[in-house]
């Protein structure tokens, strides 16, 4: 085993492979395979083959902390990437920073992750402020929604993004109400009744996982969606999972969601290459964009390692800070001014997509839109 260790450079990946968000693990797994193919074909890193060890967090912060600790102390990885739960990420960054190993987060959105300004922590993925201020609020204003109901799960991500949305709506003078729900709860009739009485024309659902499917299906049953209001799902992938249509059925029509990927919108050449490689390897088009997110962070990591010329963590951090790399979702440059969440943060461009007769139509930002928003 020690023989193999000399032959490869190891990067750790953390993410949920079991539990309610295990689908993310699957998407990560696909992205990892594609990234390894690409990187190792191009000569690997530091002249050696790149190896990835994917440790399960089960979406639980405590397990996440011990998973990343295991990767660093036991498997001796030189960098860690991944994660898609803010709560887990917030636990992991402490460990990474304490053990001084660079950690690039792919899909945990909470502002605090980079706001802490940890030296070894980077994020090459969306953050709540970026998504809310850059996309959701603009979408609401541009399309003239008047009354918004917010439903948020009680996690770091849900509560954080809810607060940002509330702030933004207040500033824009749009009436809103908010409810906090449990991620695992199944029966939403009582909550929906409250929403119905409020009478919104848009529901912002910040619920990750299958919970949002139940919510949409039931919202349709009680006659809210899409009859009187549209729903914007704030986390993306759950609306792309195969179970989505099975659970929500026709209620999913006209549902909106935030995404990083659409077949018709290619920000870069790498995006096209990713799409082709994916189709070739898995014999289907990519659906869950998180496969591409992890793909991107691995490219970023490999690039930084190569530029650093060593596995010394401080050198890697330096290299990361000077990143200027084209990945599938754009050109990566990390912020370097301390003091805000923008430190070590790169916000990729996002899309707001609407399901129209089971086809994804980009409706926002308007410059890349592939169709019109349908309200009825």
């Amino acid at each position: 085993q020690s023989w193999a260790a000399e032959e490869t450079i190891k990067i750790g990946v953390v993410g949920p492979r079991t539990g309610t968000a295990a689908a993310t693990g699957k998407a990560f797994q696909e992205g990892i395979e594609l990234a390894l193919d690409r990187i190792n074909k191009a000569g690997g890193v530091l002249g050696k083959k790149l190896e990835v060890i994917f440790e399960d967090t089960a979406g639980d912060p405590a397990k996440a902390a011990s998973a990343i600790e295991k990767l660093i102390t036991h498997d001796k990885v030189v960098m860690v990437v991944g994660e898609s739960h803010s709560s887990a990420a917030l636990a992991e960054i402490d460990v990474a920073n304490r053990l001084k190993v660079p950690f690039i987060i792919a899909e945990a959105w909470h502002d605090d992750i980079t706001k802490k300004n940890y030296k070894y922590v980077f994020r090459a993925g969306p953050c709540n402020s970026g998504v809310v201020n850059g996309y959701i609020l603009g979408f609401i204003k541009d399309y003239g929604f008047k009354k918004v109901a917010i439903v948020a799960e009680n996690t770091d991500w849900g509560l954080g993004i809810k607060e940002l949305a509330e702030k933004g709506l207040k500033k824009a003078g749009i009436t809103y109400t908010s409810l906090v729900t449990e991620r695992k709860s199944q029966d939403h009739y009582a909550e929906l009744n409250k929403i119905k009485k409020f009478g919104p024309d848009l529901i912002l659902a910040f619920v990750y996982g299958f919970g949002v499917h139940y919510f949409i299906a039931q919202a349709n049953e009680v006659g809210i969606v899409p009859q009187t209001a549209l729903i914007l799902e704030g986390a993306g992938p759950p609306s792309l999972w195969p179970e989505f249509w099975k659970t929500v059925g026709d209620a999913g029509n006209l549902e909106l969601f935030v995404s990083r990927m659409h077949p018709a919108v290619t920000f870069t050449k790498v995006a096209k290459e990713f799409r082709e490689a994916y189709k070739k390897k898995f014999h289907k088009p990519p659906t869950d964009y998180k496969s591409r997110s992890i793909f991107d962070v691995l490219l970023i990591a490999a690039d930084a390692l190569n530029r650093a010329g060593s596995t010394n963590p401080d050198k890697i951090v330096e290299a990361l800070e000077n990143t200027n790399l084209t990945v599938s979702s754009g050109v990566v440059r990390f912020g370097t001014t301390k003091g805000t969440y923008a430190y070590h943060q790169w916000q990729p461009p996002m899309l707001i997509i609407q399901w129209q007769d089971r086809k994804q139509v980009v409706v926002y930002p308007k410059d890349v839109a592939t169709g019109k928003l349908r309200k009825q």
Partner: protein
Amino acid sequence: MVDLLLYLTNGIVMGTSYALCALGVALVVGVMRVINFAHGEFYVLAGYLSATFASALHLGIFPSIAMSILCVFFVGLVVERFLIRPTYGNEMYSLIITFILYIIVENLYLFIFGPYPQKPPNWVSGSQNLFGLFYYGNQRLVSFVTAALLISIFLVVLHKTWLGRVIRAVAIDREMASLLGVNPTRINFFSFGLGCVLAGAAGIVLTPIFPVVPTVGVGISLTAFVVVVLGGMDSFLGAVVGGLILGIVENLGVAYISSGYKHLFGFVILILVLFLKPTGLFGHRQFQ
């Protein structure tokens, strides 16, 4: 007022399926003096099977339901034969065994069916405007009617047929029943299977509304325990009334207190009932 009516309706609808599931616990406790911690896992099994049969084997809704129920029954029999039978007479031992069984099965589901929710196709779609006041999902209404029907059938079978008479007799006095020619081991065997079928039936009825994931089983078991303790462990009628009460209390609680605390109300009731009237609302016998 309209709100209250909605919450009550939903409470009754949910409560009916709680009752269906809890009847299985009451049956197994009554006949065998066994608390089956893995009860809810049979609910999950039925849910998965009906989804799988419908989607993978392209069976119609009803054939897949029938096949799932049959499978659940057989699995129940196997569990009884190899795990429960050696524990007869030692309820703590059976509790430990079934607790471990629940962990095994829950993880097996993860292994076999994956972490994603699965659901059989809806029997009906759309919703109804109830009392001209609010919309209510058709599937929920159909599930409610089915659950109520199954409960009635079960109660009729229990009180009007030979099978039911024998089950009740064994539950009251096994030794006496055996003196009358009843083979109590076989009744245990069968009752356990039937108890699992009741959990399975609840699963069949509810999974079109709430898709199953590997981990829902324990919540179902806990709900069923709350219901039987509330109603009285030796009373089938108690399980029915207990289910309805729990359904209503949960819904009112969610509406007027907090949705996060939905499952808390049940346990608070459980502890209060155990404290104030250990035999439950309709029970006579205390278990030791």
